[in-house]
């Protein structure tokens, strides 16, 4: 999933100064799963804004809503009326959703409530960590299913740097495992250590972000 965390309240609150009719719009997909921008979080943020407004003597209508996804056009239909009626929308979706909402509702002021972090998995309740860097040319075949691009702090392709110590990465020895230790252990487990003797040439990064903003065009499904 795409993971995200909520921005500090103060930052969000500063953005909406002077707004009379506000809509807080959640997203029912990734950010619901990572507990950052789903229905529950919409409820909490909306209440927080209303309570802060009361404390500050401000009048602002704060409406709440959550749609299935903010990255697919069709789901906006159910919220269209609410969005039209609002002066501004706080989107609790990831960066994709915030932008798509802004694109779909031209002239509507849209603010983000979240900081989008990474493509990650849930390690345990309340803990998420990165797995994929979206490089556009999956290399997992060669590394036993553990990605050196995403999981090594330096995206090294040919083995660990000198900063790997007792299984952890020196960049964050408390919480971040050395990606190369993980790769090594996994390949050992699979009996494929010899695969790691291969030297990987410089990566062609143009398949990912370095090739410019990504675009997929599928003629087979395009209508």
């Amino acid at each position, binding site marked *: 999933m795409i993971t995200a965390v909520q921005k500090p309240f103060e930052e969000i609150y500063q953005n909406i100064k002077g707004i009379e009719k506000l809509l807080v719009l959640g997203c029912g997909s990734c950010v619901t799963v990572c507990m950052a921008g789903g229905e529950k979080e919409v409820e909490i943020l909306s209440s927080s804004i209303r309570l802060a407004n009361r404390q500050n003597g401000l009048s602002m209508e704060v409406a709440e809503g959550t749609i299935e996804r903010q990255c697919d056009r069709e789901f906006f239909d159910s919220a269209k009326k609410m969005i039209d009626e609002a002066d501004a929308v706080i989107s609790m979706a990831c960066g994709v959703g915030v932008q798509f909402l802004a694109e779909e509702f031209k002239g509507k002021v849209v603010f983000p409530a979240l900081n989008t972090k990474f493509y990650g998995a849930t390690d345990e309740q309340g803990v998420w960590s990165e797995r994929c860097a979206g490089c556009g040319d999956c290399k997992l075949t060669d590394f036993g299913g553990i990605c050196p691009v995403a999981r090594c702090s*330096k995206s*090294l392709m040919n083995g660990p740097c000198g900063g790997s*110590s007792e299984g952890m990465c*020196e960049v964050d020895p408390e919480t971040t495992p050395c990606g190369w230790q993980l790769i090594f252990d996994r390949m050992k487990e699979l009996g494929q250590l010899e695969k790691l003797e291969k030297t990987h040439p410089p990566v062609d990064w143009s398949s990912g972000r370095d090739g410019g903003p990504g675009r997929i065009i599928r003629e087979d499904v395009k209508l």
Partner: protein
Amino acid sequence: MKNLKTGSNLEKVFESGNFAVTAELGPPKSIDAEIIRKKAGYLRGYVDAVNITDNQTAIVRMSSIAAGLLAIKEGLEPIIQITCRDRNRIAIQSDVLGASALGIKNILALSGDHQKFGNHPGTKNVFDIDSIQLIGILSEMRDKKIFQNGEEIKNSKNAPPAAPEIYIGGAANPFGDPLEFRPVRLAKKINAGADFIQTQCIYDMERFSLWMEKIRERGLHTKIKIMAGVTPLKSAGMARYMRDSVAGLTIPDYYIERLSKAEDPVSEGLAICVEQILELKKIEGLSGIHIMAIEWERKVPEIVDAAGLYPRPEV
């Protein structure tokens, strides 16, 4: 002497069968060229070549190429360090051309310390290539006269190739985890075309000897010149700090004990360093010593002399 690949003095020292000595020179955090002249003055005549660090620990310092040129003017042969942290393959290859044109003959390829440890932790890192790929690029630039993209290194279609002749170095951390993988990584550097390797500073002789055993088992010592890294300890406090804060570095307690008991820890530290060098010289497969006297370059002559490595050979 067999056919030399470059005009590097360090290469000549190795190939003429000498035990080589290199040291480290950290460029200043300003435009103060006098610092380089001063440090070069200490080292001149006592080392075969000197590493010029590349913004080490991710702290902004004078460019290693510029500092290298200043070192050349002072009669020292520089080994320019290039990390993969700050430059992509375009910038690195461009700098290699420039460095070579300025008379630089040795380059040491490194991944580079993560920016988190430096004085601009909010910067964006590059890591377009890794140190092994960088070694590969350097060796192809020299031996095949091509850039990483396969194009020939020449200014125009009809011009003759004019490629850099660089003696290529790499680094090795014998004590980094996973231990079992370290010799593989060294082999990869050799396969990519590294000519010499300098190790992380060594204190634990036993563990280093075991590592060298693994290296000899694979026959790697015959394919690359291995230089053992040493760093003189200034005090028991410094030793403890290094032991506790540098990943993979172990300093045996008996050294720390010796330093804390010594009346003059500075000369004790230098004495330990000299003892280590004498011990290392005996290890089969080692071709030289790399003295990393951090901001202590003036002590290098003393160490080299006491270890019986002075004068340096004229080759």
